[in-house]
């Protein structure tokens, strides 16, 4: 068997060389930054609203050491000329099953949904497949970090923030077990609308009861440092109660949003809202309660026939204008390469461009609790950034030429580029 494997791998190596190709397995994770790099002449989009035209950014040992005008920049061993180009903080894709799902329709490739209603103890990180062919197709569009998140049930489990260039999940971990995710009990809609509402309401009551008991038990359990009997589901909440782990509640409808916020508020918790299709209808309530929100992708149809046809495109602006901390989330995994265009769409519909950028960078970092090290291009933060030939929020300008994760010069190669090259070769186009 081993012999056969060896044969196959050498065969594929041979094939790849023969086709001028590097197969995906030879797209290596980058080595640690060894010397200071300075990128000059670019328009720097800091991520916090600030834009530095013709600026310089310097980073060393993975950390940003300078951001500002070219004049005051320190010297660096390596210098990159980025005249006329743009530098952005790496985009962050929150709440995604990236690396947990490889082929949506093939069950064996699905590691996103555990069975059961309460899986507070399950951890996405250890199932995150750094060798997924999808990951590299995100990086080449500027997405450099992701919050890998389980799905399904009432309490779905724990997500982790990963950076997208790693040998294994251990190396990928950027913030381990950053949040517990809860699907707020609410009316489920089939394609025919809400069916059997009475029974559904009963279920909702029941599920809220389960949640309430769970939170009470967890709170009591976590008051003791070493409980006599270990309970993984309750233990998972320890850091939620001490404020170092986020609680993310997935909820869409107006009344449910209010109910959920009140519910967790009673336990002294401030959840992050995920989804929030109706959030703009309760924005002042959310503002009063200082609830941040990861909204659903802009590229959606309005949920009601009577809604403004562009409501999903405008929602980020509505919430941002209401003073809320807003980030964009998206469905799925491969789709995440379009994350930049969610921000672009928000900008097209009235949100200031740099504020729009923040919905996929600094705001996301703040919401995920990683803004100390990433989300913006500021001195002392990790050098998670990329150079784009044009406006990265616009598909026309989103041409990523170089990207760095913690200062490491990562490969922008991916399966799609390789196949492209392969057929350009076939047709003699190159």
């Amino acid at each position, binding site marked *: 068997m081993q012999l056969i494997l060896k044969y196959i791998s050498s065969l594929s190596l041979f094939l790849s060389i023969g086709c001028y190709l590097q197969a995906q397995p030879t797209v290596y994770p980058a080595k640690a930054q060894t010397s200071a790099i300075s990128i000059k002449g670019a328009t720097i989009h800091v991520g916090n609203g600030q834009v530095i035209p013709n600026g310089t950014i310097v980073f060393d040992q993975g950390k940003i050491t300078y951001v500002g005008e070219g004049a005051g920049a320190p010297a660096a061993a390596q210098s990159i000329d980025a005249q006329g180009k743009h530098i952005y903080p790496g985009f962050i894709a929150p709440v995604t099953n990236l690396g947990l799902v490889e082929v949506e329709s093939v069950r064996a490739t699905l590691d996103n949904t555990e069975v059961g209603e309460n899986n507070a103890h399950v951890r996405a990180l250890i199932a995150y497949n750094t060798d997924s062919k999808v990951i590299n197709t995100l990086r080449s569009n500027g997405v450099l970090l992701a919050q890998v998140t389980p799905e399904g049930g009432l309490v779905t489990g724990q997500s982790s923030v990963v950076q997208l260039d790693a040998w294994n999940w251990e190396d990928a971990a950027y913030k381990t077990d950053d949040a517990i995710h809860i699907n707020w009990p609410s009316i489920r809609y089939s394609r025919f609308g809400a069916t059997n509402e009475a029974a559904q309401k009963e279920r909702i009551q029941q599920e809220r009861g389960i949640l309430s008991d769970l939170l009470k038990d967890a709170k009591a359990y976590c008051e003791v440092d070493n409980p006599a009997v270990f309970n993984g589901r309750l233990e998972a909440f320890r850091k939620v109660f001490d404020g170092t782990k986020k609680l993310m509640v997935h909820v869409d409808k107006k009344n449910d949003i209010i109910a959920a916020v009140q519910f967790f508020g009673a336990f002294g918790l401030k959840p992050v809202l995920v989804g929030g299709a109706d959030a703009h209808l309760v924005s002042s309530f959310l503002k009063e309660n200082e609830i941040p929100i990861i909204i659903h992708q802009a590229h959606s149809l309005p949920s009601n026939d009577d809604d403004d046809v562009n409501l999903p495109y405008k929602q980020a602006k509505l919430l941002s204008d209401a003073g809320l901390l807003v980030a964009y989330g998206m469905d799925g995994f491969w789709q995440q390469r379009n994350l930049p265009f969610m921000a672009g769409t928000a900008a097209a519909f009235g949100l200031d461009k740099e504020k729009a950028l923040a919905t996929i960078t600094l705001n996301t970092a703040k919401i995920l609790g990683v803004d100390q090290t990433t989300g913006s291009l500021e001195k002392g933060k990790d050098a998670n950034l990329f150079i784009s030939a044009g406006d990265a929020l616009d598909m*026309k300008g989103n041409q990523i030429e170089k990207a760095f994760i913690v200062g490491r010069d990562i490969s922008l190669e991916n399966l799609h580029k390789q196949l492209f090259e392969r057929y350009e070769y076939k047709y003699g186009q190159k």
Partner: protein
Amino acid sequence: MRKILPFCLLFFSFYFLKGQETFPVNGSHDKRPKKYAFVNANIITKAGQSIKNGTLLVNDKVIEAVGAGQKVPAGYITIDLAGKFIYPSLIDPFTTYGVPGEAKETRSFGRAAQVLTSTKNGPYAWNEAVRPETRAIDVFTHDQKQAEQLKKIGFGAVQTLVKDGIARGSSAVVALNTNSDNEVVIIPDAAAHYSFDKGSAKTSYPASLMGSIALLRQTYYDAQWYQQQKKEFNISLEAFNKWQSLPQFFEVNDVLDVLRADKIAKEFGKQYIIKTGGNDYQRIKEIKATGASLVVPLNFPKAYDVEDPYEANKLSLAQLKHWELAASNPATLEKEGISFALTASGLDNVRDFWPNVRKAIQYGLSEDAALRALTETPAAFLGATDRLGTLEKGKLASFIITSDSLFKEGNIIYENWVEGDKYVANQGAGKDLRGEYASTIDDFGPAKLAIGGKPGKYEAFISKADDTTKTKVNLVVDGDLLSLSFNPKGAKKSYRISAYVMATEPLQLKGEVNREDGSSTAWSASYTGAYTQKAEKNAGDKPLELGKIIYPFASFGYEQAPQATAILLKNATVWTNEAEGILEGADVLIADGKIKAIGKNLSGGGATVVDASGKHITAGIIDEHSHIAISRGINEGTQSVTAEVRIGDIINSEDVNIYRQLAGGVTSSHILHGSANAIGGQSQLIKLRWGKSPEELKFGGSDGFIKFALGENVKQSNWGDIARVRFPQTRMGVEQVYVDAFTRAKEYKAKLAMKGSNTRRDLELDALVEILDNKRFITCHSYVQSEINMLMHLADSLGFKINTFTHILEGYKLADRMAARSIAGATFADWWAYKMEVQEAIPYNAYLMEKQGVVTAINSDDAEMARRLNQEAAKVIKYGGLTEEEAWKLVTLNPAKMLHIDNRVGSLKVGKDADVVVWSDNPLTIYARAEKTFVDGVKYWDVEEDQKLRDLQQKEKARLIAKSLEEKGKGNATQKATEKTTMVYHCETLSGDNNEDVNHN
């Protein structure tokens, strides 16, 4: 009990069998004369004709005479109906009286086991939904309870049918008396019935509305063929043919379905009588044009409970408007001169019948029209005018006796005579006690007694003769006996009277006052005159205020349809898609629906000049692969080949996604069948003429296309273990499906060409022959290179052409072969990883195909993405590097070419259709918004008008919600607000059983 049962049986059998000629009688015969004379009545013989002081003579089951001054011959029981009215009894032309109730639809494609042919034994039709052999009369038996419910509200006869299947067989007309089944049957086979619902049929086909339509059409052709052959016997087709001479009824539940049913009728030279959903007013012009007669329900929605604003939010404009306008439907039909009957079927409760009839009258229906719609018209529909519908000599003695004009509020139906049998609809019918009476009551003294309300529900008051202070009287009437009690204000005691009604005229009540000490004193009250109650305020007094009908009847519908006007768009960046390329500072002149001129410094004559400085003007976007604007199912994938089904049959003009896509600059969409089978259905190209009817949405004059599909959907890879029956399950099998289909098509074509052959018209093969004859063109859903290669080779060898590969995510691997055969490719910009066959789908696909000379387009297959196709096209600049002009053509000129409509649309060229978009920016940037979208020179989208439309819509909703609250405040019944979701279809959507275009409740 054991003893009672035989007794009961004996009793009932005696009762039921009386009068049946052929039945033996247990004991002595008891045959009664049954001769009646109803005298002094107001007889309404039919709408608009009445006889004052008339006489109606009934002999057994039949009217012997009717008229004024009629002499009553000896031997007749005389019934004096002074002050009362006689009407012909009502006819309900659409019930399931006395037969099993409606069969539940079992459509569950994709979720249930696959059943390919009938599971029914015997020489029946291949499909269980085709069951014309059903005769309602075979399963009919009178139903005492149902009959009484209907008789109580005035019905005397009904059409009853078995509501199951697409061809439902024959109905019967029966009277509602409950003597014997043999005697109540008026017409045993009255009419033939059809619907789009497959009912209890276990066969998987049809799973969609378009499948139902195709099945019915094919059945007509099969029946025609059947008559000319002797090879086989078929009970179903035999019956189908037999019923063709009867009136043909078709049941639907939505206005668009009325149009769909009528289209079938016209194809086969029929005229259906269509039972509608009651929302015909929403497309009245088209309804009138059908010339069809209608049976219309009175199922007006109850007001919505909108006290909770959140609940109110769930309601769409269309739901609220239908609530308000539903009751105007009959009036609208009358106004338009459409022949219609009313039915009580579809009411939650038959008690709602009269309130709803009166509501329809309040909303403008004339009383004459209402009476006709309940008597003469249904009789005519059922071919029963010789026996039903009016009061004339020789007709059945079915009539009702009422206290008042039939439609007057408070009218009471006392008796309902059916075929000469009396049914007492309302007890206490003997004497109407309403009026004012003079009386003296013991120590209370001279008093005035007033009885109001209505029989059965009297309201009585008493006051002293010299005082106006009224005291409520508790009045209980039991036949001719009554009791009264009251407790005057300030009095320490109450008065109790027991009395009876004297048989004198004027009315007199006589009895005694019962004193507390047990003694009593005589009492009487004499009628002094009518009691006029103070008119209560009711809605009828207020002028009726109704909102306007909008087209389409959906969110963002127009009250007034936008018109084509001449417009000169000045000084823009104009993307011509022609040799001229992109023109800066140019003008575009639109008039008469066409592009009249393009160039600098144009003068437009009388055209409205619009400054378009800084704007970009392009041809409208054309979506090669769309599934919007359809009703009830995009996939008829229950067989491997369903070339007979047509998207054109199920266009839904009321889908809000049409408007949403106009907002994204889309002007034409190619609506495709799904991808569940190798040969799917015929597609339909539409223009997004928002507000127009389904037929008017059709592009017009374009070539027909058909959907083929390859890969995982066709072989059912991802549908679970339930889908392991239908062939094919592998790509190998897929090839053979095509080989077989086209071989059959060729044989069929040859047979058709032979003179004198009775070749069965086969709608499925017709479509394939059209392909072979280059009259219909293929767009084939495809993913991986092996299958694409297979189909290209197969087409070569079988002699047909592939026009387009759609999706074609591995097109880049075979682009050279496609180009060599002039096959076009329509693909996604960047979709992949959602299933196995898209593992090598790459966003460079479009670029590589385009560069190899394949006519390439970016399509949507998604109602959301379709409104951003400009952005999807822009991705091909990013992935591969097309120029902007090339990229723009991916969603305009190229799809026009592959749909053979580039002579009309796809570029800005003088003489082409004015399908034009004005953009705020370069349409390939994410920042561009469509500001104006024109189709045929009509501006259907305007970013500013949209804001106005939304404001208007919000106001209208607020008005309707306030009105609903008012209804609830009046104590009227309400219903819970339920959200209606618009179904969004994709290629792979299997289910068809949604109700997106059914506007009830």
